[in-house]
């Protein structure tokens, strides 16, 4: 068996290492989008969710090209997609909490009015 020369080996290794598509980043973004959807972002933060989905789709498309340029592109798109999705989720949670506060305050106001109404005999 003939052994490869050292420079050839290095070249090969470098070639292999030059296009590591960051699968983990894609998975993180995917999960973040799902969490946002589960939190009701489609209703409460549709813009942010759309952005996150779009970037995730672009990242997935870029991941099919196995070049070092694509790897950088995938990383950035996936990271931004995850960031957008997290914001969408946070906005959805915040909107829901705000709605609950409004309802609670309406309830308290009604209760106060009821409590201060003259008692009927």
């Amino acid at each position, binding site marked *: 068996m003939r052994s490869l020369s050292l420079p050839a080996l290095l070249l090969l290794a470098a070639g292999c290492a030059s296009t590591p598509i960051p699968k983990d980043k894609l998975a993180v973004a995917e999960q973040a989008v799902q969490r946002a959807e589960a939190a009701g972002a489609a209703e409460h933060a549709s813009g942010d969710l759309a952005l996150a989905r779009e970037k995730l789709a672009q990242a997935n498309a870029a991941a099919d090209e196995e070049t070092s340029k694509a790897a950088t592109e995938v990383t*950035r798109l996936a990271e931004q997609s995850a*960031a957008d999705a997290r*914001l969408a989720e946070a906005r959805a949670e915040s909107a829901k*909490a705000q709605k609950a506060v409004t309802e609670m305050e309406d309830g308290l106001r009604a209760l106060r009015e*009821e*409590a201060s109404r003259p*008692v009927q005999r």
Partner: protein
Amino acid sequence: MKLHMKFMALAALTALAAGCASTPKNIPALEQARQDVRTAQADANAQRYAAKEIEESARLLTAAETAFKERQDVAEITHRAYLSTQTAKVAVELGKTKSAEERIAQSSAERERIRLEARTREAEAATAAAQSAQAQAQAAGSQLAIEQQRRAQLEEEMEALNIAAQRSDRGIVVTLGDVLFDTGKAELKSGAGRQLDMLGKFLQEHPERQVLIEGFTDSVGSDEYNQELSRRRAEAVRSALRSRGVDESRIDVQGYGEQFPVGTNADAGGRQLNRRVEVILSNGSEPVPPRARL
């Protein structure tokens, strides 16, 4: 003129050089990130509830600033700045969410307070209404109102006589505790005298009222023995009242043994409560109805 031309050329050259370095002085995303991180850091709710996210956004901003200083690719600087911006916004939203949740948690106390106030007001209104109804009924000569008033008056009198009395459907119940008797004995101790004096005085002042005396024991001892003991104790109270001028024909006596306990028989305190004699004074002139058997 010549000098001016020279200057222009220099300026153009400088601009060109800056272009070559490919890092402009201002990158909008970076400006934006600085502003958003400042906003998050100044937000009281974010400070309180999203310290981790604020820290993360600041860290990402530092990464963007570093890339900017190192004159890296604009795309990389913009990317880092964007992540910083989004994280800072998450911090602000998180702060809003948590403070809203806090408000909701506190609202149940507020709700309770309002309810309590309402209940108090209702109770006061009900009392006022009852008082005015009583006044009206009395003015109309209503028998019921007079009866109610009479009973209230009676209770006051008994209170004045220092007799612990409770109102029940069957009449006014005066409980004589077991301290009036020695264990297993049916003779009244001398300490019982004062209470019985008052009871006798009261009955003399209200000759229409009938009396039922009921004796009870705890669960210690046989049923027959307890039955007998409870009856003898009730009878002892009857003769005590008779000797205080109460006509015997007004008084019925009943022994119930260990039935109808008012406390647990599992401990000494409960058993002491169960060893008692209850004197029931009729509401009207009818005899006090007996208890339904268990």
